[in-house]
């Protein structure tokens, strides 16, 4: 898997992740903001989150077990309405954590 080196080296993933969110959810790029709730605002379904992780994998050029997305969301949102809590910014944060994770 080859990464986009300019993306991996960049400080923020907001723009590429927002583009991914728009493409996966088939919504206009302009409707995706950091505070957009993926389920409540953009209509994401469970399988869309798999596609988001697949696309973040391609963006970063590294494998990301789906369990890491689960651990990430469970740690932050236990007892919270996920439909409202998971926003574009949350996916950006996840992607940044994965980008900065040391290679094993």
């Amino acid at each position, binding site marked *: 898997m080859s990464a986009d080196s300019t993306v991996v080296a960049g400080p923020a993933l907001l723009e590429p992740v927002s583009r991914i969110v728009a493409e996966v959810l088939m919504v206009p790029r302009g409707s995706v903001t950091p505070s957009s709730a993926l389920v409540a605002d953009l209509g994401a379904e469970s399988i869309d989150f*798999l596609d988001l992780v697949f696309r973040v994998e391609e963006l970063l050029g590294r494998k990301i077990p789906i369990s890491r997305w689960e651990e990430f969301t*469970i740690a932050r949102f236990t007892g919270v309405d996920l439909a409202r809590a998971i926003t574009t910014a949350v996916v950006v944060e996840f992607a940044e954590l994965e980008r900065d994770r040391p290679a094993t």
Partner: protein
Amino acid sequence: MSAVPAASSTPAAASATGTRTPSLVARAWPVARGAWVALAQPHARAAHDSSGGRWRRLADRRASRVAAVVALRLARLAPDTACVSRAHSAGAGAAAVAPAGWRVGVDVTPLARVTARHALTVASDAELALVCAVVGATDAAALLWALKEAAVKATGTRGLGAMPSWIIRDVGASHADLADTASNAFVTAGWLIDSGHACAWVLAPPAAA
């Protein structure tokens, strides 16, 4: 909705008695005494969506609400005395209803939406092969996904992380058995492939909980 489909003992027969509203086609079938599943599809014009998907998604969500109304009427249940599970996906909405206290979960997934890569993220090769042997390779991934999603919803767990532990043990012509390795729970799911979608439901009475 002024008319609802006639009661039917099988999904296939219920499909033939579906009712057409100005914007939706709904069909429903009984699963057990007082428990019904309904499937509704937005009118074809929803597919020609120029709003970047938003209008279509709203139409899908409305379809799931219509399915719930249809199922509740057929089950003769009021919303506040029923367990209701709803699902919607591109081009369809579904609902399963049962009396209070039941475990209820439903999912509807477009056949073209789920790939083997998706399926194998939440299932083993053996599970996918089991489903494939019954419905064929083209439909297997979507049905596998719908079965696991329905089981997860019925048992109140959430998230993709709960799906891998629900193991598909057996698949029949209209039912499938799933067991949860995390909780030792067991459910029998019903399923149907219709109009390009896989629909699966779990309706378990309190005694089976």
